């Protein structure tokens, strides 16, 4: 098998020289147990050192290596060549993101969206537990109610799968909303109201048309679509409650 090859068609773009992106084809030795990232690394090391992309952990946890693989957003360190061989594989940068160079996308707006949901534990002013008194108690069931939303590795695959992020650049988007819900549902947190301004806004949940692709592509089963759905239900309840005569506001 050592002489077997596989073809990678990679979208290249260099901001200093290219008007627009174009595909370049590479022949790579085929190993059954190679992931797509191994093949890309092989190209960079042996054929073309200018090929530009991000990666680090090579074990599906740092979130760096997301790319479009035959049109679907995937972690390239977790998808094997044997899924495609002997057919060629088409590699593009994550969809809907501006491209910095080759397969490297601009993450600025994603980082701003993450921050916008106030992803940290918020306690009421005089209700902070002193460290000397130990941990906040949290039952396994309470932990389970937000655990799934805490598994996000910020790989941005869900944004690349979401048609709304393509149309509405202000859309806060799946991972950031799931992150906001992660804290909202944490029994130790008291900051839900502060987050609502962002989460319940039109640019957040109401922009979502519930295509659900985000949850399909998510490599960590975070279910961001579920998070958005829950957020919608909760803010609808908020809205009704605010109309009730006995709710003071």
């Amino acid at each position, binding site marked *: 098998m050592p002489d077997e090859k596989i073809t990678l068609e990679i979208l290249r773009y*260099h*901001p*200093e*020289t290219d008007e627009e992106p174009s595909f370049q084809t590479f022949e790579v030795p085929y190993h059954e*147990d190679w992931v797509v990232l191994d093949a890309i690394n092989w190209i*960079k*090391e*042996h054929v*073309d*050192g*200018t090929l*530009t*992309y*991000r*990666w*680090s*952990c*090579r*074990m*599906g*946890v*740092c*979130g*760096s290596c997301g790319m479009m693989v035959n049109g679907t957003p995937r972690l390239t360190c*977790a998808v094997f060549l044997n899924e495609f061989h002997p057919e060629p594989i088409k590699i593009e940068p994550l969809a809907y993101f501006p491209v*910095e*160079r080759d397969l*490297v996308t601009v*993450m600025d707006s994603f*980082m701003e969206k*993450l*921050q916008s949901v*106030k*992803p*940290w*534990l918020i306690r009421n002013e005089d209700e*902070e*537990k002193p*460290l000397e008194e*130990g*941990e*906040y*108690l*949290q*039952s*396994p069931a*309470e*932990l389970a109610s*937000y*655990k799934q939303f*805490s*598994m996000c*590795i*910020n790989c941005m695959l869900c944004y690349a799968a979401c048609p709304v992020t393509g149309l509405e650049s202000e859309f806060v988007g799946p991972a950031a909303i799931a*992150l906001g819900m992660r*804290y909202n549902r*944490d029994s*130790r*947190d008291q900051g839900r109201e502060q987050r609502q301004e962002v989460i319940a806004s039109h640019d957040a949940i109401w922009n979502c048309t519930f295509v659900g692709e985000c949850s399909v592509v998510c490599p960590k089963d975070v279910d961001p679509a579920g998070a958005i759905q829950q957020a919608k239900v909760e803010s609808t309840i908020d809205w009704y409650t605010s109309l009730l005569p006995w709710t003071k506001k």
Partner: protein
Amino acid sequence: MTEIIEHDVLIVGGGGAGLRAAIAIAEADPSLSIAVVSKVYPMRSHTVSAEGGAAAVIRPEDSLEDHIYDTISGADWLADQDAVEAFVNEAPREMTQLEHWGCPWSRNPDGTVAVRPFGGMKIERTWFAADKTGFHMLHALFQTSLKYEPVKRYDEWFATQLLVEDGRCVGVTAIELRTGQVRGIVAGAVIICTGGAGRLWPFTTNAAIKTGDGMAMAYRAGIALKDMEFVQYHPTGLPGTGILITEASRGEGGVLINKDGHRYLQDYDLGKPLDVSDPEHPQKRTMELGPRDKLSQCFIKEQQAGRTFEGEYGHYVHLDVTHLGEKKINKKIPFVRELARNYVGIDPVYDPIPVRPVLHYVMGGIHTDINGATSMPGLFAVGECACVNINGANRLGSNSLTELLVFGARAGQEAVNFAAAQSKPQTGPLEAQVRDEQQRIAGQFINKTGGTERLVTLRTEMNEAMESGVGIYRDAAGTQAACDKMAELQDRFQHVSLDDHSLSFNTELTAALELENMLDIARASSLAANVRQESRGAHQRTDFPPPRDDDNWLKHSLAFRTDDGPRIEHLDVTITRWPPAKRTYGS
């Protein structure tokens, strides 16, 4: 044009250590401006890969004394005891702090934080978030850091060199990857938190970014690298990729089996095995819960005796967790299942996982005191890049995540004190240093043509020399060969040729700078291994077999950089209340 950016405190590295330090500073004095420079977005830092857990005494039946003793004996008495004591004392508070910042620790039914046993521990004290502890810790720290406005991040900036003025560290030069510009970032105090250097070796659990950059920057500025001969092999990595199967799998009851179906650790003075169905299994400090150095050495002995399996990626043994059952595996070690299924096609619920020792952790690093201060005023170091030293000749699993927190907080405070007591650095004279660095990088790499060496060739040769010379077992000839090889590779590095001559996001350039860094520290590590003529912990010399030699070698090694290669000096180990004794397991 040279641009100089000014801050009060500068942190290089956005992993667990760097982020903990940044928050400590923001809390100590909200008026200070803090820069966090990181070559990857902070949540991509290698801390994210840590699986098993972080140690701190929390159970009433546990004690600080026991944590101290486990750490010191695990370190084969090469740890500094004042540092270990401070570490153990402050660990519970730091871990609780992280709980208050939202880290989703696994819980007991009563809502308290749950703990599990790790290798070399007398009692369970490892806090965990399933088997994604580092991931949750890093994300909790990163997300918490977002609420502090004075923390300004420089994401995807690659630090290349320390800025030094009158013997004081006043900043770094760094490449902004997006534009390729070299800039100076100047501050009253600098903390290096750049992580380890596992990528010196070919087969490692470490991420691609672990290239020892901060160690090399400090080393080139005249600061000693301490105990670089001590590197930890983890006994259970996946063959081929080196992906880690966490020690938690053994903490939960997994066992190691050779090709004859025998739990071979019982033949190596690590105690008697209990049946996996025995309620007392797994016993602490015994068998599979022995320390990592010993377990990795046992593997080599088994291999030499012909009792390991042989596969496409070399020899291996079996890690069997099947008896835990699907429910427990899914609850306690789900990531182990995910990794084994994805990367070796084995479902550990039904079949044993193939494993072999894999380079995991560099115990040595930038020589610091108990507050993270280095010998250069204004420069501090914390985390895997530093050597405080609590890890000695063998790090105890799950101590290093806690180390990031305890010493991150300490160094943050020290840096605040230092910056407050000193005048602000003058930026004027530094502009020339920044310009020189820009020119060096342009001349040596970007604009250079006609080189003859490819990066991958040099890196592969370095990896091979480290594996064969500075692996689990060493001797005089092998370590000497590694020293010679590094000197040769450093010469050849002058003829490196890059394909990429552009500025924007030039990752071939950063790979070249990383290789330059690795060659420097590989040389220090091989020489330190050559000079230490004894066997202790993870440093096993076949020509100087155990027992360790306290009369001559109960001391740290310090490697200083000179133009003709490293120079090794020695420093006494701080012994306070725990006189050196025999290291025993399995009693």
